[in-house]
């Protein structure tokens, strides 16, 4: 067993190869221990009580906020809003900032490689406000050319929303360049960090992100906790997304005043143990270290793409350079539907994703109806890559060819 896999109970005593890390990642004992400690030692409703457990629950929750703020380079802790996931973070911006600030004549620019969670909220804003939705197209290599974004982002553009890393192609977009250009035109920039935060250091200020969304479960944290970073100036001006408990200052029969950020955006009882788990996952990432994480992923992706290139029946999509894949390798096997590929590999105890990967506009743009996707993380091993490629090489035979 590889040195990191020992930390992950799910990998013990079985031969399962987990190559669906872009969908969700596995959780190390450190994360589960942190959540158990919260539940066993100080479980109470944070932000409310005046007794020891609740005070400690509040501290644990706010410490987690601080850890997240540091993790993505936010200037202040209050710029971090805990949400359920990336999808909820983006919806918060769409409903609160988008519906309030956009109108007919405005434009929203998004890339064709966005996940549905960064498309549908903007379709909703577009329908309700009359703002026009504009797509930035990428080439078959996944690259959005400079001519493309400089032509489509104009003084009409009020918002640019883009993934830092594509969940299908694994390509890293030139967020800083695009953000600088968008800011010059007066637009606000939202970055979907769901696929970047697990794989590379992020600094929202260096990226030029006005909003930044990510999920805990994609970086070994629990499901049901995510975060939204928003520049404090923007957050202060935005109306609440959800209303209810704990987000108020005072309530009269027919009116209310709201708490300052971040509480203004965290209505109802929060997912405190989830936040604690997310913070533990971030600490675990830091302990492993970005150098080791990135080196291991680079080595594995090179090996995977190199070995797949030896199989004539396999087509790999996106950039030919494995270093531009962030561990995500999307492919098809000639004559075999990706769902059959996934089912057959499952019988070999190999987990991959098949389908449209919640990115149907990109699939159409690439001219494929569905694909198979292997996505790696640093805890995967060379042996797993080799066994995976051997199995892929046998799929056509199993399918009767």
């Amino acid at each position, binding site marked *: 067993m590889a040195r990191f896999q020992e930390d992950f109970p799910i990998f013990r005593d079985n031969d399962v190869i987990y190559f669906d890390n872009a969908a969700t990642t596995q959780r190390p004992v450190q994360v589960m221990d942190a959540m158990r400690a919260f539940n066993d030692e100080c479980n109470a409703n944070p932000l409310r009580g005046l007794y020891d457990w609740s005070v400690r629950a509040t501290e644990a929750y706010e410490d987690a906020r601080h850890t997240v703020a540091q993790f993505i380079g936010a200037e202040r802790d209050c710029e971090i809003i805990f949400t359920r996931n990336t999808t909820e973070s983006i919806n918060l911006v769409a409903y609160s900032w988008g519906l309030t600030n956009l109108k007919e004549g405005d434009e929203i620019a998004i890339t064709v490689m966005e996940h549905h969670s960064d498309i549908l909220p903007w379709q909703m804003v577009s329908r309700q406000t009359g703002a026009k939705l504009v797509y930035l197209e990428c080439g078959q290599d996944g690259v959005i050319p400079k001519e493309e974004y400089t032509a489509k982002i104009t003084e009409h553009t009020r918002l640019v929303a883009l993934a830092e890393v594509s969940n299908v192609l694994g390509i890293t977009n030139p967020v800083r360049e695009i953000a600088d250009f968008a800011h010059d035109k007066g637009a606000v920039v939202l970055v979907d960090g769901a696929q970047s935060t697990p794989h590379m250091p992020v600094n929202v200020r260096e990226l030029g992100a006005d909003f930044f969304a990510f999920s805990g479960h994609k970086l070994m944290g629990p499901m049901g906790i995510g975060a939204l970073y928003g520049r404090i100036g923007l957050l202060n001006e935005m109306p609440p997304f959800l209303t209810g408990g704990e987000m108020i200052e005072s309530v009269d029969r027919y009116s209310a005043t709201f708490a300052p950020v971040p509480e203004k955006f965290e209505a109802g009882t929060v997912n405190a143990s989830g936040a604690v788990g997310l913070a533990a996952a971030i600490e675990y990432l830091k302990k492993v270290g970005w150098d080791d994480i990135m080196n291991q992923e680079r080595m594995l992706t090179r090996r995977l793409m190199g070995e797949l290139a030896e199989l004539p029946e396999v087509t790999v999509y996106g950039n030919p350079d494995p270093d531009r894949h962030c561990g995500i390798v999307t492919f098809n096997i000639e004559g075999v*539907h990706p*769902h059959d590929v996934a*089912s*057959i590999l*499952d*019988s070999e105890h190999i987990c991959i994703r098949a389908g*449209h990967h919640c990115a149907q506009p990109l699939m159409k743009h690439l001219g494929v*109806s*569905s694909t198979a996707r292997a996505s790696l993380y640093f805890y995967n091993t060379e042996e797993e890559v080799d066994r995976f490629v051997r199995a892929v090489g046998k799929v056509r035979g199993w399918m009767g*060819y």
Partner: protein
Amino acid sequence: MELKSLYREIVNEHNLHPTHKKDLASPTMVLEGVNPSCGDDINLQLQIKDGVIEDAAFNGSGCAISQASADIMCDQIIGMSKDQALRQAQSFMGMIKGTATKEQIESLDEAASLQDISHMPARVKCAVLGWRTMSEMIGKLNEEGVTDGSASASGQDTCGACATNSAAVCKPGCRQCPV
């Protein structure tokens, strides 16, 4: 049955060498069946006269299970009355949901070999696509009270959720769910 044997013994043959994957010369009814979540897409063609399915064929693309299941279905329903075909579809759906009787499963003949799909929730919608499409076509005929298949049929869609889990509740407007 182990998955690879299921493919080897049943699915591959119908997927790679389908008997009924073609266009009919003069279908009386044509309907598109789609699984939007996985891109399975079949174009089912029936030739019905006096309430009897004289010929059946399909075209389209999709995974091996959806294609093989549609081919097996066409094989079986040719020569059946539309009501027999509908009953056959109900037996198939029942088998996949785990509610079919022993007699129903026996009556499914070769299609019964797809029974193990009921243990693969993600593939259920693939296996039932052809059968659902056929049921809807005959449902339309019965609604309009005609026997020659001249009823109009437009495109259809699944709600997606229903087919992945036989216990799932469909969204309003979904007309294809096995439930």
